[in-house]
């Protein structure tokens, strides 16, 4: 037990740093670790060497819980064997001095044999295991407590098995889909994919998904103005196993296609921008996903137009769903709904860096070889567009049209083959724990003395005392009122 206490305290302590320091793979903010690195350039590498950004997969954290489980198993296996023997063994004979037991009573009876019979019958009715010998009744109840205790501890091993199964065989991914866009479930379609080491990425569930429509409602009044009130994404899907259909995904209502689940985790705007190049040809068009940066859905996005002529183009934009004039003359968004949508754009020319083989985010530009487009006054060129408006770029570079507004939805995609095992383990854990804490285990003896008295005694085998009505009811069943003669005589 000492080992268990020490290791449990150690487990609690080692879990703490992970809640204070940013963690890789903890979903609330994917860039938290990078930000921490930027803020603490000297400290961060040292913390990283100590696995403090991956606390829950760190070797020292694993060491603690593996030691705990090993010590637990070392404790539980012998106890299982003991329990098995206990189940087969009869309740033991009464101790010599029954009066030393915690609950003890001496009664005067006319016929001690009849009294013992009555006691045995009563205890059997109460589902004690009973042995009746010539001079005494031995009874025991509550071994299920020990069983519950074992089930609880063993279910922790099963739970670990389920967790490991999910971590090794499952995967998690993220994908952002603009309205009208199609997602095919192959690994290259994901914006981010975190597979377990044994996940079968070639064998992903064959399915495709189209985001037909996305709706968001926001609070329009009161102190919580602008807070989200409802989201729904209407999707059509097709899969080999489940056929075709449509489904409305909402928070707390994922789409489940044969174990691959789609969760709605975020959303935003995708302005439809058409870029014509200097020759007047359409070089880019359609919705472009802009990532929200604040509660009012001010959003950042870029449009990369490598095929524009005479030179490749890039647009960097800020989208304001409800643009109002901010304090310093800059436009800001006042409300997350699209009341007065505006796109503010600036433009770049030069090498977008798409051909040098290094992977690049579709949401940001690599400015290394880009030149900012300037207006005739030499100032950086900037423009604000409302839906339907078109603007010409300086120097005959082309034009940009803000055609209209789509929305996009972020889906978390997850497959966890271990979760059913974990759930069963959790239910067993709950049941085992409740039984092991709620049921008192106790023995009761009834012994006939030579002088026409009988003695009743109970002994608790756990910290929970013998329930007081055990002995009271037993005394009553032997047909004597509990308060009658010979009431609990300690040292007579």
């Amino acid at each position: 037990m000492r080992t268990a206490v020490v290791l449990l305290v150690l487990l609690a302590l080692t879990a703490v740093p992970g809640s204070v320091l940013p963690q890789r793979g903890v979903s609330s903010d994917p860039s938290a670790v990078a930000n921490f690195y930027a803020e603490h350039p000297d400290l961060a590498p040292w913390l990283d060497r100590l696995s403090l950004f991956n606390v829950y997969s760190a070797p020292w954290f694993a060491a603690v819980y593996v030691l705990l489980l090993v010590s637990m198993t070392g404790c539980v296996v012998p106890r299982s064997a003991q329990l098995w023997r206990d189940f087969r063994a009869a309740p033991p004979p009464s101790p010599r001095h029954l009066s030393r037991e915690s609950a003890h009573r001496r009664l005067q009876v006319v016929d001690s044999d009849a009294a013992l019979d009555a006691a045995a019958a009563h205890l059997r009715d109460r589902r004690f295991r009973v042995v009746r010998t010539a001079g005494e009744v031995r009874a025991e109840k509550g071994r299920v407590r020990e069983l519950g205790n074992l089930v609880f501890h063993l279910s922790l091993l099963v739970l670990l098995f389920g967790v490991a199964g999910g971590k090794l065989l499952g995967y998690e991914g993220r994908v952002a889909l603009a309205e009208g866009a199609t997602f095919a479930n192959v690994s290259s379609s994901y914006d981010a994919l975190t597979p377990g080491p044994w996940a079968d990425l070639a064998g992903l569930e064959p399915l495709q998904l189209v985001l037909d429509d996305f709706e968001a409602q926001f609070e329009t009044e009161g102190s919580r103005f602008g807070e989200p009130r409802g989201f729904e994404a209407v999707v059509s899907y097709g899969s080999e196993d489940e056929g075709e259909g449509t489904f409305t995904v909402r928070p707390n209502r994922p789409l489940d296609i044969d174990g691959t689940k789609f969760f709605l985790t975020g959303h935003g705007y995708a302005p439809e921008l058409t870029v014509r190049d200097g020759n007047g040809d359409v070089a880019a068009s359609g919705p472009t996903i802009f990532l929200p940066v604040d509660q009012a859905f001010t959003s950042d996005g870029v449009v990369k137009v490598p095929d524009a002529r005479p030179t490749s183009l890039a647009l960097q934009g800020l989208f304001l769903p409800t643009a109002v004039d901010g304090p310093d003359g800059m436009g800001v968004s006042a409300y997350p709904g699209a009341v007065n949508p505006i796109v503010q754009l600036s433009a770049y020319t030069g090498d977008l860096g798409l051909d040098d083989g290094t992977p690049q985010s579709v949401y940001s530009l690599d400015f290394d070889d880009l030149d900012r487009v300037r207006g005739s006054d030499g100032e950086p060129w900037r423009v604000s567009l409302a839906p339907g408006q078109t603007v010409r770029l300086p120097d005959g570079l082309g034009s940009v049209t803000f055609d209209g507004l789509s929305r996009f939805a972020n889906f978390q995609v997850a497959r966890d083959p271990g979760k059913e095992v974990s759930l069963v383990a959790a239910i067993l854990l709950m049941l085992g724990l409740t039984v092991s804490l709620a049921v008192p285990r106790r023995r009761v003896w009834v012994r006939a003395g030579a002088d026409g008295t009988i003695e009743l005694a109970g002994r608790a085998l756990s910290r929970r005392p013998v329930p007081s009505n055990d002995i009271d009811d037993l005394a009553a069943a032997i047909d004597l009122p509990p308060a009658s003669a010979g009431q609990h005589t300690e040292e007579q």
Partner: protein
Amino acid sequence: MTSLDAARLSDTLVTTALAVFSLALVAFAVAAALTRAKGPSAARTPSEPVPAGPAGSAGPAGALPPSGAAPLDRGRGTDRGFLASAATSMTLLGTIVVVLAVVARGVAAGRAPWGNMYEFGLTGSAAVALAFLVYRRGRPVDGLAAWIVAVVLVLLGISATSLYTPVDDLVPVLNSRWLVVHVAAAIIAGGLFTIGALATIAHLVRQRRHGEHDGPFSQLAHTVHLVAFPIWTFAVIAGAVWAENAWGRYWGWDPKETWAFITWVLYAAHLHALSTVGWRRRAGLLAIAGFAAFLFNFFGVNLWIPGLHSYAGV
């Protein structure tokens, strides 16, 4: 009754409950002072202000002049008895009022009244007071009543001042049946942990002063911990099931989840220490540590640490 009326009624009831609990606390304090004024043998330690029964009615001869002492003494004893029973009645009344405030808040919001920190604190206060009153019947734990009232008063006061939020709809991710189950279990377990921690502290103080190994307070602590631990386990499991349904994973080491885990592990350590010979005192300290982790999970994680549970903020 409109939603707005119900919301106002709830706020009024909270103010009333604060007043009633304050009066109860004053009554407990005065009764305790009267007890202490009688002399060392009848005096209780500061941690156990008032035994509501006739305890302490036999004052030491030296504390008061022998002649004429009896009527005075009886007079004081009656005052004390009256004050103590008045304090208990006010505690009962305050509990009823705060339960009504929870109900009115639920009516006003049209949902289970535990969707934000204020509502969690309000319902938690009701849970602590109610659980103590239920356990108290027929058991000699009134010495703890004043401390329970003080804690309820602090929790309710912080909720009503710093955490207060007007009735509003839930953010979409909270709009789930699991909110009812998961948060209710967390509140009940939290209420019991609170009582367990107070009883443990009282027991440790008493153990140090009187060398007592097993008393009504340690029994109280043991009972509430045995009931609270499975409920907390259930709250964590229900939270995991909900997280699977809302976020696509049942456990992701979000700060809230991490501190729920730390709380669970510390209480598990407490239960193991109870079965370890000679570690009863350490077991008590572990229970207090578990409660500290629970408190940090409610206040610290909500207010200081960003995470997926941040919407539950003030």
